[in-house]
């Protein structure tokens, strides 16, 4: 499953990141690596963004970006 499918309040673990290019690099720079635990805080249902808690800080990303991150639900 992908990160955009995780409901708010649930945690997940990154399995793989399929975004290439500048976006993929940026997420890697920010610590979106396989094995990293992420909690979904909020998820705007119709429009962006998805609010996440990762490595002790908050970050918001687009649904399209969250879709590019494969995760397993915890």
């Amino acid at each position: 499953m992908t990160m955009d499918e995780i409901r708010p309040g649930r945690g997940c673990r990154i399995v793989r990141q399929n975004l290439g290019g500048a976006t993929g690099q940026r997420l890697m720079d920010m610590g979106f690596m396989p094995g990293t635990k992420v909690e979904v805080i909020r998820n705007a249902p119709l429009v962006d963004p998805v609010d996440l808690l990762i490595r002790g800080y908050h970050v918001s990303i687009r649904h399209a970006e969250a879709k590019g991150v494969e995760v397993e639900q915890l």
Partner: protein
Amino acid sequence: MRHKGNKIVVAVAGQPNSGKSTIFNMLTGARQHVANYPGVTVEKRTGKYSHNGNSVTLVDLPGTYSLTSYSQEERIARDFLLHEKPTCVLDIVDASNLERNLYLTFQLQEIGIPLVIALNMMDVAQARGHVIDTHKLSELLGAPVVPTVGNKGKGKQEVKEAIVNTHKNTENGSFRIDYGEKLESILGLLEKKLSEDLDISASYPVRWLSVKLMENDSEARRLVEKAVSA
């Protein structure tokens, strides 16, 4: 030449919103625009102060999460460090977001310029209940670590002192990331090859360049191609 008499050039680097401009203003007494959102500094700005007879020029670099060549800010910051060769880098680390911020610290260390680390927003970190052993951190990173609170002027003298003393710190540059056996064997080959090219090894940190080539970084490739064809 890194030292011209007692003139010291310091690059101020750090991730977006770590307080680079606040620290820059604290040290120089300037009133450069600071706002509480990332990306305020997109160009580099300079300021001056003197400390114990040393004339110090600060260059405020744009905030970057890393030093790849994907975005303009990253290229500005990186080109400055590679080509202008400042005396040292003042790395502003957001103490309340240590893990993510240290990623840039590692990249700065690979470039091989002596570091002074300002552990900024210590008050925020403390309020969140984080306890940071700055001595241990300094020991592990092989660079001085100075706790600061930029907007309250805390740590100002200590940072200034650490900057003029960078050349005395023999530990600086001793830290090195071990990428593991698989990658290190290839990195070792690349480093050896690049060291053999005198133009490249005189102009660029070989370890850094090897890591970037493995990342397939377009700028690093261009630098090597240019040097080889010259």
